[in-house]
């Protein structure tokens, strides 16, 4: 029972981790609190639903098309919403508020077109696999595999490629990379495309597992953002670690209390971290003046 719950929580955490990694990629490099990341997540789920259930496209082309479109959409958000603000050096507060406005616009458009009710992506009983006492559905296994593959590729890119080096440089000092002759506005494009695609993977897998409604993006962005903070801002591994922790704790909460308190758990964890370890699991303590604004 407990191992089953741990496994379920860990796999839910894998999906959160993909959202968190995408959010961290954008937040750590651009400093933009990309609240609309949640709306990107919702959009990905509905695009996938449209292609699979309304246009009956085969699974893999539908996934590939969703990923591509969502990546382009992520770039468009940056071009149309954030870049004009960055160019007139608007504050991060203004960017956050614009992002919140954008979230509202996208999610309500989706609700207007598709309605507020839950849509089921994969009807019927899913095939299951058993690993000892733990029984996992096909989609759960796919989620774990997708997370493992993407997590490893993410860090290979980050550590071993020139792009990864640029991303790390931008995380450490956004101003400095333009001195190095790299155009930060182009790095932003890559970061928004990749970050949005990561959220799309999580949205499609979670959608297949539990269905979708227009508000799924809210929980996704909350879990993702909290994961980034409790993992340690600026540390990509921390985001994934924080997300897995949230997944497991939520799953244990269902066992001890009820599923209704899942979101409450996330924030109790956040508050506890802010009190006792504000630098996050993997962060190092810095004075407030040193912290990047």
């Amino acid at each position: 029972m407990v191992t089953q719950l741990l496994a379920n929580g860990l796999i839910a955490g894998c999906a959160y981790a993909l959202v968190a990694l995408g959010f961290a990629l954008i937040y750590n490099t651009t400093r933009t609190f990309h609240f609309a990341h949640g709306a990107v997540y919702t959009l990905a789920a509905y695009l996938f639903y449209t292609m699979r259930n309304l246009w009956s496209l085969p699974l893999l082309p539908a996934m590939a098309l969703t990923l591509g479109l969502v990546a382009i959409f992520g770039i468009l958000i940056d071009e149309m919403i954030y870049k004009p603000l960055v160019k007139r050096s608007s504050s991060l507060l203004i960017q956050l508020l614009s992002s919140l406005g954008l979230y509202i616009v996208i999610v309500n458009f989706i609700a207007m077109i598709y309605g507020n009710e839950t849509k089921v992506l994969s009807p019927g009983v899913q095939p299951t696999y058993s690993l000892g006492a733990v029984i996992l559905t096909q989609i759960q296994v796919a989620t774990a595999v997708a997370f493992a593959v993407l997590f490893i590729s993410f860090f290979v890119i980050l550590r071993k490629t020139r792009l990864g080096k640029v991303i790390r440089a931008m995380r450490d000092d956004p101003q400095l990379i333009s001195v190095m002759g790299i155009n930060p506005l182009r790095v932003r494009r890559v970061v928004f495309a990749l970050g949005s695609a990561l959220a799309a993977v999580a949205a499609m897998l979670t959608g297949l597992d539990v269905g979708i409604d227009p508000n799924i993006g809210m929980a996704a962005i909350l879990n993702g953002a909290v994961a980034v903070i409790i993992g340690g801002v600026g540390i990509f591994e921390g985001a994934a670690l924080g997300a897995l922790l949230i997944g497991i704790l939520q799953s244990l909460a269902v066992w001890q209390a009820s599923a209704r308190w899942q979101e409450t758990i996330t924030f109790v964890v956040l508050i506890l971290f802010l009190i006792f370890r504000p630098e996050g699991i993997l962060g190092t303590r810095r004075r407030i003046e040193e912290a990047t604004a």
Partner: protein
Amino acid sequence: MNYLLHILTMINIYAILALSLNLLVGYTGLLSLSHAAFYGIGAYISTLLVMKLGLGFLPALLLAIAGTVLLSFTISLPSLRLRGDYFVLASLGFQIIVFSILYNWVDVTRGPYGIPGIPRPKLLGLDINSIFSYFVFSAIIAAICAGLLYLIGHSPFGRTLKAIRENEIAAAALGKNVTRFKIRAFAIAAGFAAVPGALFAGYLRYIDPTSFTVMESVFILSIIIIGGTGNLTGPLIGTVLMIFLPEALRFLQIPDAIAANMRQIIYGVLIILIMRYQPQGISGEYRFE
């Protein structure tokens, strides 16, 4: 006529919400997404005290204010000494937790069923029962709150908040305990939010958790962003505009099924446009810099 009085009463209620959030956003430069939570806590505490313990409107209101102020410390103490982003996220988290408690703690709040049959307030032997008397009553309370918030804004305390907003490190260098000022500003804003909560409950005579959602917090925030922050006129203009806007949309005959989404889209687009072209809003002074 009653329709107009109803709208004006709602304007009074939302004016207090907007002006109190303005103390936080416009004066102190802190973005909070938990104002609807304090509004809801005020509504529920005062309602439960009136209905379960038979308290009068005023004592119940004062205890509700005390309750919201105390609860405000649960987020302000852990998060306000940290970066602004953390506070936004913590306030959003608080909002979600409060909604979850109002919705799921059925034994006390009746959860989704809501609380019907809330008595209209009685003050100094006067029954405030007609729509007109409730409008006058809410207008007087709103005026008192606006006056108090004006005095707070123009006191040395309010000027310190503005100094923190403009340059936190400079304010700290002048010997101001920045975190302590922020915590107090947050507590005051939360306490004021309890007042419209009690007014709303006494007016509609029914409350349920759906009046106090995240989207309601976003709505209150959008009132002051669109109207402008940092002074009194901005939030007041925003309130009048944003309460009349849905009524105007009603005359455009938009089908009910999409009217709610349509409204939200308009709010979202307005926030984006204001942030890009006129961050001080229609008539505010703070440009979120």
